[in-house]
C-alpha cells in the first residue's frame, strides 16, 4: 500500500452538515411514506395499522379532478410563461444599454423575491370585482358589471404566470447568454432576415433553456399554494390546497400524506414525460 498524500482535506467537515440536512429531507419523506401506509384514527395524530386504504381514497372524484386540474393548470401556466418570458429574456441578454439591462433584470427578477402571499394578495387587488382592472374598465365605459376574475381558473393562471415568470426569464436568459452572437450574424450574412435568423439559429440553440424553464415553471406551479387557495377561493381545487385541507383542517395526516405522494409522483412523472418528449428539440441545442 502506497502512503497517500491527503487529497481531500476537510472532507468530513464539508460534507457532514450536508449529510445531516439530507437526512432530514429523507426522514421527512419517509415520515410521509409511513403515514400514507397507515390507517387514520379520527381525533388523533397517531396512526393505526398498516393499510392501503389511503391510496384507495385518492380515487374519489374530487381528488381525481384535483389531480387532473393541477396538471392542466401547471401545463397551461408553464406554456404561457414560456411565451411571455422569452421576449424579456431575449431583450435582457441582447440589449446593449447597461442601464436598460439593469432595469429589465431588477424588474423581471424582483417578483421572484416577493413571497407568494404578497403577490397573491396584490393580484386580488388587481382582479377583484371592485379591483383595479374592473374599476378601470367600468370607468371608460367598456363594461357595466364587473368581469368575474376571482375564483376562476383564468384568474389563477394569470397570477401563476406572474409568479413563475422570473424563474423562466432567468433560465432562458442563462441559455441565451451562452449562445455566441456570431451564429446569428453568420446566419444574417448568409441572407437570413432577423426573424429567420432567430427561428433557424437562436431558437433551436436555446432549446435546452426552454426545456429547463418549462419544467421548472411546471414544478413551481405545482408547488403553489397561496395563489390557488386565495384567488381560486376553493372553486379551483388543486393538489396543494387539498393536502392543506386534509392535513391542517381535518388533521387527516395519512390521507394528506398519500395525496402528497401521489402529487409528487404525478409532478415528477409529468416532468419526466416533458423532458422525454422534448429530447429531440433539446438535442438541437448541441452541447
Amino acid at each position: 500500500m502506497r502512503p497517500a498524500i491527503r487529497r481531500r482535506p476537510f472532507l468530513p467537515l464539508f460534507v457532514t452538515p450536508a449529510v445531516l440536512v439530507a437526512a432530514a429531507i429523507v426522514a421527512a419523506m419517509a415520515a410521509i411514506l409511513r403515514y400514507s401506509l397507515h390507517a387514520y384514527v379520527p381525533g388523533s395524530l397517531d396512526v393505526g395499522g398498516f393499510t392501503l386504504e389511503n391510496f384507495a381514497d385518492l380515487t374519489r372524484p374530487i381528488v381525481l379532478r384535483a389531480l387532473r386540474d393541477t396538471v392542466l393548470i401547471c401545463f397551461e401556466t408553464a406554456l404561457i410563461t414560456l411565451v411571455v418570458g422569452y421576449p424579456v429574456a431575449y431583450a435582457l441578454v441582447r440589449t446593449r444599454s447597461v442601464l436598460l439591462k439593469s432595469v429589465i433584470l431588477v424588474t423581471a427578477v424582483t417578483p421572484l423575491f416577493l413571497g407568494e402571499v404578497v403577490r397573491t394578495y396584490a393580484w386580488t387587488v388587481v382582479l377583484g370585482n371592485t379591483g383595479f382592472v374592473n374599476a378601470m374598465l367600468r370607468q371608460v365605459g367598456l363594461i357595466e358589471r364587473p368581469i368575474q376574475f376571482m375564483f376562476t381558473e383564468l384568474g389563477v393562471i394569470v397570477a401563476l404566470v406572474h409568479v413563475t415568470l422570473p424563474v423562466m426569464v432567468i433560465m432562458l436568459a442563462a441559455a441565451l447568454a451562452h449562445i455566441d452572437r456570431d451564429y446569428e450574424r453568420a446566419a444574417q450574412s448568409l441572407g437570413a432576415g432577423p426573424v429567420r435568423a432567430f427561428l433557424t439559429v437562436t431558437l433551436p440553440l436555446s432549446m435546452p433553456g426552454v426545456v429547463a424553464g418549462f419544467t421548472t415553471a411546471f414544478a413551481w406551479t405545482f408547488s403553489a399554494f397561496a395563489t390557488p387557495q386565495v384567488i381560486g377561493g376553493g372553486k379551483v381545487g388543486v393538489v396543494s390546497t387539498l393536502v392543506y385541507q386534509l392535513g391542517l383542517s381535518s388533521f387527516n395526516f395519512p390521507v394528506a400524506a398519500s395525496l402528497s405522494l401521489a402529487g409528487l409522483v404525478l409532478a415528477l412523472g409529468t416532468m419526466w414525460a416533458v423532458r422525454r418528449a422534448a429530447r429531440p428539440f433539446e438535442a438541437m441545442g448541441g452541447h
Partner: protein
Amino acid sequence: MRRGLRTRILGISGTLLVALILAFIVLPAFVVTLAAFNDRAILSFPPAKYSTRWFTRALTYRDFQTGLWNSLVVTAWASSIALAVGTGFAIALKRYAFRLKDTLEGVLLSPLIVPHFTIGLGLLVLATGLGAARGFAVVVVTHVIVVLPFVIRSVYISLQNIDERLELAAASLGARPGRVLTTITLPLLAPGLVSGWLFAAILSFNEFTASLFVTGQATQTLPVAMYGYVREFADPTLAAVSVIYIAVTAALLTVANTFLGLGKVLNVEQGR
C-alpha cells in the same frame, strides 16, 4: 430600403412587447401601492382620498409585529446555517470525489422540484412524531432545507470562477490545506458567499407554503401572519405591508445588482 423598414418595425414592436410584459410584471406592485394609500377600507379605484393610516395599522398590528420578529429570527438562523452547510457542500461538490456524491446532491437539490407543501407536511409529521412540532427548530430546519439549493448553486458558480491553480500555487508556496482555505479560497469566494447569503435570506424571509405547515400560533412567520390576515380581513392593511415588502426587496436587489452584479450571480450575463 424595404428590409431596413421591416427591421425597424420589428425592433419597435419588439420593444413595445417587452415594455408591455414588464408593465404586466409591475402592475400588481403599482396597484397595491395605490390601494395602500387609499383612505377607504374597501377597495376602490382611483382612490378618492389618500392617507397613510393603513401603514400605521400594519406597523402596530400585533400578529404582524410578532410575525416580523419571528421571521427575522428564523431568517437569520436559516440563512446563516444554509450558508455554512451550502458552502462546505459546494466546495466538496466542486473539488472532491466521494462516495454517494450524486445521491447526496440529488437529495439536497430535490426541494427545487418537490412541492413545498410536501416538504412542509413531511417535516410536520416528522416533528409531530418526535414531539417537536410547533417549535422554532422545525421552522428553521424547514427553511434551511428550502433555501439550501440556492446557496449551493450560488457558491458553486462562484467556485467555478476561481482558478484552481491559485490553490495549487499557494500549496507549492508552503500553505497547508487550512491556510489555503482561509487565505485563498474563502477570500476569493467572499462575493459569492455574500450573494448566496442574501439569496437565502430573501427567500427564507418570503417562504410561505412550507412554513404554513410547520409554524404554530407562537412561531408564525410574517408571510403566514399575512395569509391569516387576508383570510379574515379585506381592508388595505395588507396592501401597506406589501408595499413595505416590495420596497425593501427592490432596494436590496438594486444594491445586490450594483455591488455584486446580479447578472453574474444568476448566470445570465452574455458570454462574449
